[in-house]
């Protein structure tokens, strides 16, 4: 059901899925350890001003793409096919729901990055 008036979208979903899979494996362990485990446990003290400056740079955009957007599309693809494995959903609505959620998360992340840049 990935056809849209004869347009095959599966290569796009698969490309985002595999790029997101690499990012999930290579970048997420480090990011989650630092920002979601060690910092909340009080082992690391984060400097908010330095983080905001770094996040609003071009490196911040790369970070957002590799750590939020691509893994979101990876997750969307797996959830879509996981639903099919569980004989749930299928058809257009799971496509719209899964990739739509990933697109929303990505758009929000890009907007959040833009809000931190100096030219906004």
């Amino acid at each position, binding site marked *: 059901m990935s056809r849209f008036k004869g347009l095959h979208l599966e290569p796009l979903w698969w490309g985002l899925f595999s790029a997101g*899979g*690499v990012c*999930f*494996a*290579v*970048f*997420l*362990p*480090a*990011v*989650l*350890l*630092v*920002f*979601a*485990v*060690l*910092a*909340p*446990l*009080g*082992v*690391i*003290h*984060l*400097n*908010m001003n*330095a*983080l*905001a400056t*770094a*996040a609003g740079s071009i490196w911040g955009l790369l970070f*957002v793409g590799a*750590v*939020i957007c691509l*893994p*979101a599309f*990876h*997750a969307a693809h*797996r*959830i879509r*096919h*996981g639903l099919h*494995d*569980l*004989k749930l959903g299928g058809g257009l609505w799971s496509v719209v729901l899964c990739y739509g959620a990933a697109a929303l*998360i990505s758009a*929000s*992340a890009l907007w*959040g*990055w833009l*809000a*931190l840049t100096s030219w906004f």
Partner: protein
Amino acid sequence: MAYKAPMKRSWWLQHAAFRRYMLREATVLPLVFALCCLLAGLWSLQTSAQFHAWQQFMAQPWVVAFNLLALVGALYHALTFFQLFPRVMPIRLGEKQVPAALMVVAQWLGVVAVLLAMLWLATSGVLGAWQ
């Protein structure tokens, strides 16, 4: 009419390999939670009050537990993904095939390098420091 083999929704419970497959697929569920946490963190960087609130949210035991699960999920995904890579994309250097084990080790070295770089950024004073 052709015979269509019946397949129950619980088909994946019948074999250990199927269960491992479904477990691997399920590693993205805590990942989605963690991505939303990181997204909230990005948005919270606009004011110090919001950033403080985000830090308090992240320090709650159930949030740390879910994020730890996401970390374990990421490592399990990496474990399975790295074994897959040499089979999907075998690399040849001249006449010789690069051994699969070497490619797996190289990928783990990449993970460790990113981990050390991130830890250095977060603890050397660039983005933060040891508490």
